[in-house]
């Protein structure tokens, strides 16, 4: 073996050194792996520190290392760090290999002797492998500066505006007829009690009128192809039945439309809209849509009232869905959440007891633009409640539904309590598990509520019932709750119950994840690249996530993430071109028999058949380096760079030999 290999064993403070005898490991590597080309082996407190990296660079320069192995954390964390260190010292970054002795050894192994042995086996595997690694040069591809933002809630709006204001073009896709998202439905925002619409609609207006933003509402992404810098996205623009080039948004159509429909989306089922509608008066864009499933003309073939009265002739019943394809370099997903459906907790009575409301229904009740004009009344539409109970953590922090905390419900419930107090003077009972008010101004708001005289009962609501046990409970909703601070069961007779429902991933989150090549956590939230240090990037380069689709959060956090994702995208655009993975597949034409197995196995149509030669050929720009073709090649003629058979076999043999040698030692 002519290679000169350097091995560096990281202590990671005590994360590794607390379980693995790192000094023993590095000594062992220097002696036992000398025959495999190891010329220097060191252990160091933090290899990822600048001093640690300098250690590698120095050895490359002074000892003439031709290969480097670092035994530390997961390559998902620090492979780029050490590859860069090698590159700085003039060593091709693909001549570096990592042994994961933290996440996959010291953190998961109890026995120190066993953990040390495992570290040795993993290092031997990496040393064996690295000797076979080849220098690779990454391709650089230009970045298309256009950006796609999916989801027109506050997060998507923020991201789109940040990018558009910098001068880049943005496509903003929203599946509802208007942008605005959930924030447009809310009455007030906590803890400042700003009117939600008042702070949101100016931003919506800016989006609608921005010269750099192409707004595609009533549209959905159907297909995403390509890779960072070069995505081709297919979008379905659903038929609006309105010619937007002539529509002025005057509203005559929905005034004249005779068909009233319960609005399950924007009014959360509390109010009605027409069959031709905009969800709310400040909708952006101002153009309505015709709801084909409820329109009398589409159902019965007659009516056309809207068309008769439209002053500009904008109604077009022959409108068809339109499929458009756009080219973008980066994608930001801000697809938001769906509200937990409290019907899944039957003992809370939602859907059965009329005066049990969801949090979103209450937002619409309290909203001056809502179906009751902002009057907080019972389901009959007139009676003002004299007492209201608010149940926290509905569907959250509950193993039967979602074990996570939905992050916004405490503050939302406090806000509801304040609004009920202010508008009706009713007695308010907040039944909570814990009050969580960790952001700026939040706990002050809680203190204010305590001063206002809201009753706080520490206990999870067990049941809401309409069956009275005492005369005072006649005609009331009774909330059964254990007050854990006084250790007693309580029954609270109230007129209204508000369920502070948790946030859930979109019902179609799997479809979204699959469409954009992302993965979801067990709860269904999209997974970020790193939970602390890379919260808006994903494992798919060029696709970013922001807002609640990544996990429950409030408006300020969503806005911050929207802006953060925009900043990440702009930094990529600013680079002009980007390095793509060099580990692509390559065909050995001397042995390829042209059976085309690889072509049918490739998920990206990256392999073509050269009919003149009768051989397969890989298009490097399209190849993403999965190696599925390698696994299916019958003549072993196709190989994946950086994951060749000889590299993987060498790695496996290295690990096996050490494991077997330890076994023999034990037997002896």
């Amino acid at each position, binding site marked *: 073996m002519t290679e000169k290999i350097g091995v560096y064993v990281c202590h990671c403070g005590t994360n590794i050194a607390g379980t693995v005898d790192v000094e023993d490991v590095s000594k062992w590597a220097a002696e036992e792996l000398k025959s495999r080309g190891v010329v220097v082996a060191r252990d160091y407190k933090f290899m990822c520190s600048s001093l640690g990296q300098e250690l590698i660079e120095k050895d490359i320069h002074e000892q003439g290392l031709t290969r480097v192995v670092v035994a530390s954390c*997961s*390559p*998902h964390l620090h492979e780029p760090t050490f590859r860069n260190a090698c590159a700085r010292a003039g060593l091709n970054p693909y001549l570096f290999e990592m042994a*994961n002795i*933290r*996440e*996959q*050894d010291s*953190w*998961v*192994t*109890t*026995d120190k002797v*066993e*953990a040390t*042995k*495992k570290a040795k*086996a*993993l290092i031997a*595997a990496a040393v064996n492998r690295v000797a076979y690694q080849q220098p690779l040069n990454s391709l650089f591809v230009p970045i298309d500066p256009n950006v796609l933002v999916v989801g027109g809630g506050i997060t998507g709006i923020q991201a789109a505006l940040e990018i558009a204001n910098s001068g880049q073009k943005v496509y903003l896709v929203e599946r509802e007829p208007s942008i605005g998202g959930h924030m447009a439905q809310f009455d007030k925002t906590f803890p400042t009690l700003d009117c939600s619409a008042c702070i949101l609609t100016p931003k919506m207006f800016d989006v609608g009128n921005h010269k750099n933003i192409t707004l595609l509402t009533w549209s959905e992404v159907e297909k995403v192809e390509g890779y960072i810098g070069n995505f081709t996205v297919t979008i379905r623009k659903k038929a609006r039945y309105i010619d937007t080039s002539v529509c002025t948004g005057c509203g005559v159509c929905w005034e004249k439309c005779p068909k009233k429909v319960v609005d399950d989306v924007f009014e959360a089922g509390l109010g009605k809209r027409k069959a031709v509608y905009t969800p709310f008066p400040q909708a952006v864009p101002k153009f309505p849509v015709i709801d084909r499933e409820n329109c009398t003309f589409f159902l019965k073939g007659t009516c056309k009232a809207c068309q008769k009265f439209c002053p500009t002739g904008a109604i077009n019943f022959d409108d068809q869905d339109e499929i458009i394809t756009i080219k973008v370099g980066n994608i930001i997903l801000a697809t938001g959440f769906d509200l937990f459906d409290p019907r899944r907790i039957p003992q809370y009575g939602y859907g059965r007891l009329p005066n049990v409301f969801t949090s979103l229904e209450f937002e619409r009740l309290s909203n001056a633009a809502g179906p009751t004009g902002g009057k907080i009344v019972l389901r009959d539409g007139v009676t003002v409640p004299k007492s209201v109970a608010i149940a926290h953590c509905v569907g959250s922090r509950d193993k039967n539904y979602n074990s996570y905390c939905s992050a916004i419900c405490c503050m939302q419930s406090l806000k509801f309590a304040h609004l009920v107090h202010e508008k009706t003077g009713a007695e308010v009972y907040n039944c909570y598990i814990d009050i969580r008010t960790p952001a700026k101004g939040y706990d002050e708001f809680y203190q204010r509520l305590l001063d206002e005289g809201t009753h706080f009962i520490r206990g999870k609501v067990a049941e809401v019932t309409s069956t009275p046990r005492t005369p005072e409970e006649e005609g009331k909703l009774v909330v059964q709750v254990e007050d854990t601070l006084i250790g007693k069961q309580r029954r609270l007779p109230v007129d209204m119950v508000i369920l502070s429902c948790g946030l859930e991933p979109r019902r179609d989150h*799997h479809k979204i*994840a*699959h469409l954009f*090549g992302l*993965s*979801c*956590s*067990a709860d269904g939230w999209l*997974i970020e690249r790193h939970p602390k240090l890379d919260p808006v990037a994903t*494992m*798919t380069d060029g696709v970013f996530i922001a807002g609640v689709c990544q996990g429950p959060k409030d408006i300020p956090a969503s806005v911050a993430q929207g802006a953060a994702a925009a900043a990440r995208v702009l930094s990529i655009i600013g680079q002009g071109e980007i390095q793509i993975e060099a*580990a692509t597949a390559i065909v050995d034409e001397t042995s390829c028999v042209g059976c085309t197995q690889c072509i049918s*196995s490739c*998920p*990206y149509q990256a392999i073509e058949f050269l009919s003149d030669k009768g051989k397969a050929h890989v298009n490097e720009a399209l190849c*993403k*380096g*999965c*190696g*599925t073709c*390698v*696994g*299916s*090649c019958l003549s*072993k003629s196709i190989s*994946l760079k950086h*994951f060749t*058979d000889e590299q*993987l*076999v060498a*790695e*496996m*043999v290295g*690990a*096996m030999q050490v*494991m*077997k040698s330890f*076994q023999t030692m*034990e037997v002896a």
Partner: protein
Amino acid sequence: MFEPSIIGFLCNWCSYRGADSAGMARMKYPPNVKIIRVPCSGRISPELVLRTFREGADGVMVLGCHIGDCHYSTGNHRTAKRMPIVKKLLEYTGIDPDRLMVNWVSAAEGEKFTNVIKNFTEKIRAMPPFVETMK
């Protein structure tokens, strides 16, 4: 006690990160499995599995993304089709096909990963050492 030597081929995007998640949550499992990272479980050719047994491994694990969640969209479909055939091949050559295990572990499933490792290690431990069965 017999300590089996097991090689696990894990896809980079789901299962390898699932193994990292188990580490981040400090879950404990036996040290017998040594993990080799491949981009996709679809990269794992039958030869690689056979070669690992030839080297004396007592068990081989192939872990990939759940069907439908593959980072390369359909790479693991190949794994799902290929590995049962490899098992048949093992049986034909006189190797207990239970020594090869195929499973799907997502990046979030640290707990599942831990259980998969524990169960497979116990299963292999209960079998005779592989080299003895080949004598």
